[in-house]
């Protein structure tokens, strides 16, 4: 008897090992890198990765009036290189174009590019080196964790920054102290923005009067979108009739979906990743819940995870859709001609836009007659980003870049729909 119990207990211990094993799953992108604080040692020794200077006329004197120096920082090698290279190439593509047309106010823009290898300490080192070289503004960083580290250095000196890819709210806003980093802007969405957009879309375009939400409990991305969706629904008068959660790794959603079906909503908001989304939609159709499902950019790729019939009419929002407009097509053609299609992704486009916004601001700053790299010049650039952004018709935002109180862009989203088993561009919204 005792032996039997002991055996079962051993089994339970083994069981907990398995449970742990089951939870080890895909590493999600987004918050990579540690939130490195000030790193004085790194700043002093300055042995960053390969410097890649390019474009424009080369001058040895950093204070030269002949050029305006702009930094581009990101992971150009390693695991995240595909993001970093997209950002570097996208921005360089536009800046080269401006230089070819004679530059700004007769001055060429000189790009100072550094590879941070996706590491926060390297990013801070490289940034310090760039400042020493006399940059006026920075396009970057790329990963959220790296960007937060660089913001810690750039905010005290008021150096204008535009990131094309860091989506965390903490990049432009310190929630602990209530400080908005006035020098930091971005041309990508923040995550919750997608929730607001889809709520707006459900109410205005789909005419939804009621909605339900199903999201993964404990997942920042999923819950962030769901919260934003619910808040916006409340503001728009859309009744959220059911809110259901599930745990990571769950495959059976029928109980939650049965509750949702009982509440009979007009739409279901499902801001999760594509594998779960596929299972959820399949099971919803099975129990007779036929309303459209809406999601965020985590849906991209869902077509392989549920049948065409079940997914028909589902919608999700994204920041970028290949070939969605003439501007996007022209950009893609230029990009592919110069860099090939390997690194052509959403961040290449948002980075191209970041360069456009920055160049518009630099034009404004040139009007002040200040010296590039000086404090007054940088202030003028920051003011210029906010004032000129709305009139910059970017690749991913034809309506321009209007920044909110937290320096996040209020731009159009791409609405994608699934039809005939394909994910296709539906409209800008």
């Amino acid at each position: 008897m005792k032996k039997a119990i002991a055996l079962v207990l051993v089994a339970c211990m083994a069981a907990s090992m398995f449970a742990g094993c089951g939870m080890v799953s895909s590493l999600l992108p987004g918050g990579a890198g540690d939130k490195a604080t000030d790193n004085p040692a790194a700043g002093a020794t300055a042995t960053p990765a390969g410097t890649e200077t390019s474009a424009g006329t080369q001058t040895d004197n950093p204070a030269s009036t002949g050029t305006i120096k702009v930094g581009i920082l990101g992971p150009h090698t390693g695991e995240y290189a595909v993001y970093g290279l997209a950002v570097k190439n996208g921005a360089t593509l536009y800046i080269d174009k401006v230089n070819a047309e004679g530059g700004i106010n007769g001055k060429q823009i000189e790009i100072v590019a550094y590879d941070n290898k996706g590491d926060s300490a390297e990013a801070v080192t490289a940034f310090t080196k760039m400042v020493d070289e006399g940059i006026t503004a920075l396009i970057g960083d790329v990963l959220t964790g790296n960007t937060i580290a660089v913001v810690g250095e750039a905010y005290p000196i008021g150096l204008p920054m535009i990131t094309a890819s860091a989506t965390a709210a903490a990049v432009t806003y310190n929630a602990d102290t209530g400080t908005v980093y006035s020098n930091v802007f971005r041309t990508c969405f923040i995550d919750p923005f997608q929730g607001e957009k889809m709520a707006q879309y459900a109410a205005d375009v789909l005419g939804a009067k009621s909605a339900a939400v199903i999201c993964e409990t404990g997942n920042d991305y999923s819950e962030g979108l769901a919260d934003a969706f619910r808040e916006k629904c409340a503001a728009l008068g859309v009744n959220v009739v059911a809110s259901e959660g599930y745990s990571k790794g769950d495959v059976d959603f029928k109980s939650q979906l049965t509750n949702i079906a009982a509440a009979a909503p007009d739409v279901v908001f499902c801001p999760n990743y594509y594998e779960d989304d596929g299972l959820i939609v399949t099971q919803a159709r099975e129990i007779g819940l036929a309303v459209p499902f809406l999601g965020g950019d985590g849906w991209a790729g869902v077509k392989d995870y549920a049948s065409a019939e079940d997914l028909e009419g589902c919608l999700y929002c994204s920041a970028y859709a290949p070939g969605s407009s003439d501007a996007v097509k022209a950009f893609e053609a230029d990009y592919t001609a110069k860099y090939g299609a390997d690194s052509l992704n959403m961040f290449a486009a948002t980075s191209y836009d970041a360069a456009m916004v920055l160049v518009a601001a630099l034009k404004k700053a040139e009007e002040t007659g200040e010296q590039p790299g000086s404090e007054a010049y940088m202030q003028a650039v920051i003011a210029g980003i906010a004032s000129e952004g709305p009139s910059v018709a970017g690749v991913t935002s034809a309506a321009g870049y209007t920044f909110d109180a937290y320096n996040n862009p209020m731009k159009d989203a791409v609405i994608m729909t699934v039809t005939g088993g394909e994910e296709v561009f539906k409209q800008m919204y």
Partner: protein
Amino acid sequence: MSLLETIFRQILNGLQSGSIYALVALGYSMVYGIITLLNFAHGDIIMVGAYLAWLAMARLALNPIFAVLVAVLGCTILGMAIEKVAYKPLRGSPRISLLITAIGVSYFLENAAQMIFGASSQSIPAIIKLRAITLGGVQIPGTALVTLLTAGASMAVLTILVNHTRMGRAMRAVSEDTGAAQLMGVNISTTISFTFALGSALAGIGSVLYSCAYPQANPTMGAMLGLKAFVAAVLGGIGSLPGAMVGGFAIGLAEAFVSAVGLSAWKDGVVFAILIVVLLVRPTGLLGKPMHEKV
């Protein structure tokens, strides 16, 4: 949808997932009954079955009926092979060695699948397409109906097999007293092999039903499923076949109930709480016979 209908549907949801747990739990219980081994690789056999179904349908474009055959046969052969290669050489060893070997086999299968098929999920095409059936004003989804009927039929066949055939009698004899059974001329090796084949075939059927309900194959999908089926087997009384069925349905219903009242984050927690309570209050489970240590 009326409240009554919602409750009925939730019960149906619970029975559907419960019947899969029951099929897997039967495999656990049978193997434990005959060689007192907790075969932790059992859940991973389901995973292999799901991948076989995926291979047959998505890659080889076979008819769903062949996919079902491939999955069930594949699981049966795999189960017997594991017994021959990993467990048979250890038959005289302490039980703990067998248990650890079972865990090793489980890890081996998971990692092999990850190496061959990759870590991300593979989508399995629909195996059965059935319209929902309306019964007394309540819609019953096609897959739920098929799952319940198939599981019920499998359990009926198993019961007949164990209680009314020569092989079944041998199984019961070995489980009661291996030594005495051997003296009476029962071929122990064949009987054990047959038990593994039977348990794995049920796992194969379980994997097909699982693939119908949750059409994705993933290298680690068997881990949690296996654990919950193990809890079901313990709840019903490990070694008892009716107990495994009752336990499976009870776990499925408990999960559906917990999710239905909005506590989905506690779903797994409740299942393992049941395990702890059973071990504390009634270690022999609902239908298990009190175990006497053989001298």
